């Protein structure tokens, strides 16, 4: 099986690799030591049964044939006849010549070859022993260290496991790599960057045995460490800077990315790293970083495509959380169980929706409209100055509210004096618009008796009909009428609207009026609408999590005139939203009282009877609309309803009824104090609105009931409720833990959990060795690859837990191991025997990742920015590429200055159109959780490295650097540049070739000075003065060649 010319092992690879790794292990790895005494169920039989038989005879009840399941020994016994293969129905059916009886059946497209049949037969002959799947049993508390013949080679326990395995196979470890190779390897692996020549020199000169540890400790302490490890975690967390579906708006989640970098740099123990991201908000006294970490659960894609059904998408997001949890933390393919019980692993649909139930109870909506209006729940991230301003603003509001109360209390004398006056009129001041709706004027205008200059208007499709008073307006349901609002209605603007309304039936839905902006995927602003016959009155920033909303308890009667009045007092609270029916305060329930920012609907119009793509007021009659620019007191509303309540109260001198009226509508001093308070509130509201927010997790007061959804469909019958639970086939849920995400995190990080620690150490192992001990980093289930070194994996997992989940210690242990320190060169025999280096008889070697390639080129050229974190950067990308595919997006405009040279993990990640120079090097699209990248080799890669302005500019900078700093002779200069790219020194032959290249290029550019000038203008960086253009262009070309060398694009 010659596979060595296909790419390296650290990728899912082609069919042959993925499938063959299991096969290889089955036939070689476990069998590699002298033929095993006994067939092993876990390592040989189960992979085979799972691959060929479980589809019909496995855990999935629906697909099960003949009621036979081969994954369950109790059931399988009837076809096995342990110890008596000739009596075994299983053996008979896989060997029979009768095509009608032969298993697997022809139509399954599956077969067993002779070796495999023989293996199963032997297994039956040996007693058909079953064992639980290794990965679902906790790693043992103590993993004994194997004894080894060569006691000197191991630098630590880790090496003993590797060596024991090599010795079993009759192999010897490779010699140690050169110090240059090791420091290059370790520096890239721990920081994602190349070592500087000075770092290399210092290390090479340091003969002490501790030199390695000193370098490792320096690298682990570098802030670049957090950036390096973050790169992998961003893939797992499907981190991106845009939402990913359709219009693909910006998601503004980069503060989470910065949290990851900081957490890794601070060496936050991995159990807390997990807990914070899954449930940081539920920790007692949760801090801002703990809450911020939960953005992890919100990094899934979101849609704002018109016409989307929010509930469908909300379910998608919950599913994505479960899938990511499964892949990133547990190494399980839980997503399979969204539509059916797992076909290979012991997980059911109920398990899936039970896990989903932990993640379904946040106050979220399935769509967003405009990401400036952050999807909820969201965490405000005020800067220290903003914090101070907010605190000061809140104090001011409180003080002015107290002052208003004082003023009102102090106005009793004035009230009585006013009451004593003989000429009191039943005024309801602040009337901005009064629309009798008796007549349609020219241009479909509707007269405003309170201000002739601001008439209303209606779509001509709406018609006049007999009204409460004179005529009224009858709505089609698809057409609206517009009335000028007192101002742009927002949190800090009081207003009231009142009118007569008659509906032809109890309105399940229907837009009464709105003052909103948005699309059918989300509106923000003020709204009064029908909700199952009741009136819903709200100020919305983002529904439902950032809104103040009330709903009447009473249903509006149909077919009769009802007087409706709503009033808002600019308090920003639900208590300030009042609804009156027929002149009386309507009893309401508060649906939401959490408006934290302005609604920013703009405009200045109340639109009645319709809203884009919402249900309108079909067949409803509207009459006598009045709009006030202040909140109304009760008696004023009564007056609007009956035309005499206030008149009568004045006549009666009814103190109780009139005192609130006096303070609200008459008294100038109260009005002044109220206005002062309003202005202070507006300032506070504006300050709150200016605070950056990020989507995070935050539980609803009551969990949302979860259901098993047939085929994963949101609209499947909801007749199978499920509670929050974890799969029964794994470790038990900790007894004292709460049934919420925090309890889930406790379960994940429980030392008995069989998967979390193993999956984590395996991922870190992959980071250093290019492949995990379990090659299928994303799948530890029965269909995943088996561990090449099971005891080592268990040892590392247990050690990781015992160390307090210390990631840096784990990394340190690996880079200082003798295993890691081996040279990577493999003689042909070894490569033939172990092409993928499964046995680790040599050191790791890998092509740099997309990010590392770019960062290394920038570093070599001395261009790399040191800045950590902050909003994403926009380096060079082909111009216009966003807009070309997506008219909702702007053209891509690259940054100027530092943004061109930031580390690649800060590059703006547009999910539907990722940076092409990163995709060319196997960066995933970040649409879904990915824990293992491919490593391919394509012609698009040389095109990037040779022609992308980013790399050309870096080569120019390196060329300039070698000319200025490299020394006197071309040999010195090119040696210097070579070391900046490849870390080691060039061989004589390499140097000779480079010098030739440089000299040839000097000649070519001397003959073509215009070409040299043009070439030196690639990128934003201006060509430096004082250097010969031909020499500089030749140096840049040669530097470019160096950056393209295998020695520069790989670690060896």
């Amino acid at each position, binding site marked *: 099986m010659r596979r060595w*010319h296909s790419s390296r092992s650290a990728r899912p690879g082609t069919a042959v690799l993925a499938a063959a790794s299991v096969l290889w292990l089955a036939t070689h790895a476990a069998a590699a030591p002298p033929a095993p005494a006994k067939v092993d169920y876990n390592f040989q039989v189960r992979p085979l049964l799972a*691959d060929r038989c479980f589809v019909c005879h496995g855990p999935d009840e629906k697909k099960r044939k003949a009621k036979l399941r081969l994954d369950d020994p109790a059931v399988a016994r009837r076809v096995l006849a342990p110890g008596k293969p000739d009596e075994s129905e299983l053996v008979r059916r896989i060997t029979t010549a009768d095509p009608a009886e032969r298993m697997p059946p022809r139509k399954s497209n599956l077969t067993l070859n002779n070796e495999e049949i023989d293996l199963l037969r032997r297994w039956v002959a040996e007693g058909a022993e079953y064992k639980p799947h290794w990965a679902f049993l906790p790693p043992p508390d103590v993993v004994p260290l194997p004894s080894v013949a060569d006691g000197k080679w191991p630098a630590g326990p880790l090496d003993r496991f590797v060596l024991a395995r090599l010795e079993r196979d009759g192999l010897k470890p490779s010699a140690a790599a050169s110090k240059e190779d090791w420091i290059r390897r370790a520096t890239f692996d721990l920081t994602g960057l190349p070592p500087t020549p000075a770092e290399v020199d210092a290390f090479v000169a340091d003969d002490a045995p501790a030199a390695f540890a000193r370098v490792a400790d320096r690298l682990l302490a570098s802030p670049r460490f957090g950036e390096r490890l973050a790169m992998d975690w961003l893939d797992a967390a499907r981190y991106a800077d845009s939402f990913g579906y359709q219009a693909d708006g910006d998601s503004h989640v980069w503060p989470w990315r910065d949290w990851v970098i900081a957490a890794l740099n601070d060496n936050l123990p991995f159990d807390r790293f997990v807990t914070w991201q899954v449930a940081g908000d539920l920790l007692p006294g949760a801090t801002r970083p703990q809450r911020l970490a939960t953005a992890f659960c919100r990094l899934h894609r979101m849609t704002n495509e018109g016409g989307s059904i929010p509930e469908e998408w909300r379910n998608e997001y919950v599913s994505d959380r479960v899938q990511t949890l499964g892949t990133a933390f547990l190494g399980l393919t839980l997503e399979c169980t969204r539509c059916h019980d797992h076909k290979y692993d012991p997980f059911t649909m109920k398990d899936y929706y039970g896990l989903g139930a932990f993640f379904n109870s946040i106050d979220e909506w399935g769509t967003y409209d405009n990401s400036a209006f952050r999807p909820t729940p969201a965490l405000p991230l005020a800067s220290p100055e903003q914090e101070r301003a907010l605190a000061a603003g809140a104090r001011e509001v409180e003080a002015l509210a107290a002052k208003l109360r004082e003023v009102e209390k102090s106005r009793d004398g004035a009230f009585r004096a006013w009451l004593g006056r003989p000429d009191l009129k039943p005024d309801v001041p602040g009337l901005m618009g009064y629309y009798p709706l008796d007549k349609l004027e020219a241009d479909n205008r509707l007269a405003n008796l309170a201000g002739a200059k601001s008439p209303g208007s209606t779509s001509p499709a709406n018609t006049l009909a007999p009204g409460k008073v004179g005529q009224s307006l009858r709505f089609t349901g*698809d057409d609206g009428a517009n009335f000028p609002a007192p101002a742009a209605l927002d949190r800090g603007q009081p207003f009231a609207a009142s009118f007569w309304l008659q509906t032809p039936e109890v309105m399940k839905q229907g837009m009464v009026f709105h003052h909103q902006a948005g699309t059918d995927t989300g509106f923000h602003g003020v709204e009064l609408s029908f909700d199952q016959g009741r009136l819903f009155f709200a100020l919305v920033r983002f529904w439902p999590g950032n809104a103040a909303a009330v709903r009447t308890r009473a249903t509006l009667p149909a077919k009769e005139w009802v007087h409706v009045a709503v009033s808002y007092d600019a308090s920003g609270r639900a208590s300030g939203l009042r609804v009156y029916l027929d002149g009386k305060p309507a009893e309401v329930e508060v649906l939401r009282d959490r408006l934290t920012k302005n609604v920013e609907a703009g405009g200045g119009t109340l639109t009645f009877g319709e809203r884009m793509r919402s249900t309108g007021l079909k067949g409803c009659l509207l009459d006598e609309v009045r709009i006030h620019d202040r909140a109304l007191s009760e008696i004023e509303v009564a007056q609007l309803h009956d035309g005499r309540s206030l008149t009568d109260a004045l006549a009666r001198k009814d103190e109780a009824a009139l005192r609130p009226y006096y303070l609200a509508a008459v008294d100038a001093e109260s009005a002044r104090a109220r206005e002062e308070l309003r202005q202070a509130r507006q300032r506070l509201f504006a300050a709150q609105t200016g605070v950056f927010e990020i989507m995070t997790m935050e539980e609803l007061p009551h969990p949302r009931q979860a259901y098993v959804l047939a085929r994963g469909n949101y609209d499947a019958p909801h007749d199978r409720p499920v509670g929050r639970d974890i799969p029964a086939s794994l470790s038990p849920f900790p007894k004292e833990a709460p049934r919420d995400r925090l309890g889930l995190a406790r379960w994940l990080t429980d030392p008995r959990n069989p998967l979390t620690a193993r999956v984590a150490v395996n991922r870190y192992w992959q980071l250093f060795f290019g492949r995990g001990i379990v090659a299928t980093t994303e799948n530890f289930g029965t269909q995943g690859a088996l561990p090449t070194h099971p005891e080592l994996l268990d040892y590392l997992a247990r050690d990781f837990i015992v160390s307090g989940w210390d990631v840096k210690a784990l990394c340190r242990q690996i880079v200082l191991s003798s295993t890691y320190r081996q040279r990577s060169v493999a003689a042909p025999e070894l490569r033939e025997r172990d092409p993928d280096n499964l046995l680790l008889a040599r050191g790791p070697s890998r092509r740099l990742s997309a990010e590392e390639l770019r960062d290394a080129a920038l570093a070599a050229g001395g261009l790399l920015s040191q800045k950590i974190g902050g909003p994403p950067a926009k380096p060079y990308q082909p111009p216009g590429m966003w807009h070309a595919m997506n008219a909702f997006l702007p053209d891509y405009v690259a940054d100027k200055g530092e943004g061109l040279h930031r580390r690649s993990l800060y590059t703006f990640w547009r999910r539907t159109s990722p940076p092409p120079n990163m*995709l060319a090097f196997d960066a995933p*699209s970040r649409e879904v959780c990915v824990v293992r990248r491919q490593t391919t080799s394509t*012609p698009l890669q040389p*095109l990037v490295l040779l022609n992308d302005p980013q790399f050309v500019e870096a080569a120019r900078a390196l060329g300039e650097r070698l000319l200025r700093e490299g020394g006197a002779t071309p040999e010195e200069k090119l040696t210097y540049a070579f070391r900046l790219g490849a870390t080691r020194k060039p061989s004589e*032959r390499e140097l000779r070739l480079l010098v030739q290249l440089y000299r040839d290029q000097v000649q*070519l550019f001397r003959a073509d000075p215009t070409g040299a000038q043009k070439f030196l203008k690639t990128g934003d960086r201006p060509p430096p003065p004082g250097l010969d253009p031909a020499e500089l262009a030749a140096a840049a070309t040669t530097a470019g060649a160096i950056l393209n060398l295998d020695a520069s694009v790989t670690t060896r």
Partner: protein
Amino acid sequence: MSANEPLDPLTITRRHFLSGAGLGLGALALGVCEAASGAPAAPQFSGKAKRIIYLFQSGGPAQQDLFDYKPLLNEKNGEQLPDHVRGGQRLTGMSVNQASIPLAGSAFKFARHGKCGAWLSELLPHTGSVVDELCIIRSLFTEAINHDPAITFFQTGSQIAGRPSMGSWVSYGLGSMNENLPAFVVLVTKGKGDQPLYARLWGNGFLDSRYQGVKFAAGKDPVFYLTNPEGVSAAGRRALLDKLEELNRVQLERELDPEIESRMAQYEMAYRMQTSVPEVTDFANEPQHVLDLYGPDVRTPGTFAANCLLARRLAERGVRFIQLYHQGWDQHGDLPRQIRGQARETDQPSAALLKDLKRRGLLHDTLIIWGGEFGRTSYSQGKLTKDNYGRDHHPRCFTVWLAGAGVKGGLTYGRTDDYGYNIADEHGEAISPDKATFTPGAVHVHDLQATILHLLGIDHERLTFKFQGRRFRLTDVHGHVVKELLA
């Protein structure tokens, strides 16, 4: 054995040609994948089509105004869609709350064309001239009701992200037929706007990145980073590449890693692409009568017409899967005016491509597909006026046509009810087929995908890739080859 095909430009590994290179590459890739999982190499049959040109009409063209003649809609223009016709089907959030959903007859006249007498609207005169080559399927249906999920489903077989696209599956299964160009090329009409496109539509999913579609753009750099930086001469670049090869050979001797050699081969392939891509995108040697065939737009790079001609040139040079995208069919409102423009842009070039391929003897082994991700409603979204209407998304029936290799020309397959709202049986009665069981006359997206693969000689149930322990395929666990469409 490996799935590395020697002729795949994205993987060329010169020293490691497989001894069985004479085999069909499809058999090779499929054989490998089956062999590795323990089954015998799959005996794949020989397909009629060697390559595909997929003219994807993004946004969802209105079948009632182009292909599916519904005189009843004109008779009942303005009347409400009857409940029994809607049958409780869900509508999108865009029209579900409309107070009125009036039927909208087409503003366009229909006539029969060709020997086969297929109905087409006056918007498609050029298509009419090749109608005897077309296999018009009026009974496609899908599940998704919004663009992003629907187009993702159509192009990858799943609404879920992370799955390989059709072109990736085909290049994975069949490999490349040329040494100088990618096997899977994507062309997008320039400057159309409307519903977005996404890199995932030509993504490789869990397959190797080498199977990713390579997007060509109109203009100076048809492929990202194809052109040398300004001021770098061909001689200078060649000199650099020669030295680079020598230097990498030194490294190969030192490290003994065959991966180095593979990378060296990629540099040569990249160099060849620098010549072959500009050559294929340059129409200078196309005779006038060919340019005329495609219509006046052909002179403007990036138009649908220019892309159709480019598709033919790519097909001639052995590109396996050529995926065009033409946006602009999402006509929720103002449909009569907008669709006229769309038809003007696409009708002539589509027909010209067919004629041109036929003249060159390429049509018999090239499969052409024309259609969008779903259809449109028979009722008007928004206001229906005397001369204006819009149509919302409609997944339950729509029209796609196939032509060329292995396809029965002059066939109109499947029908819809008189309202153009549901797929109908042979008596015109509405039926509601589902993907799980094949209903003759109704073609689910997976059925179309299965049929397309069949035409290439691929059994859609056997072109699989094992990922996360499961064998994935383009058609998920569904799909049925629609034999009636095959010549």
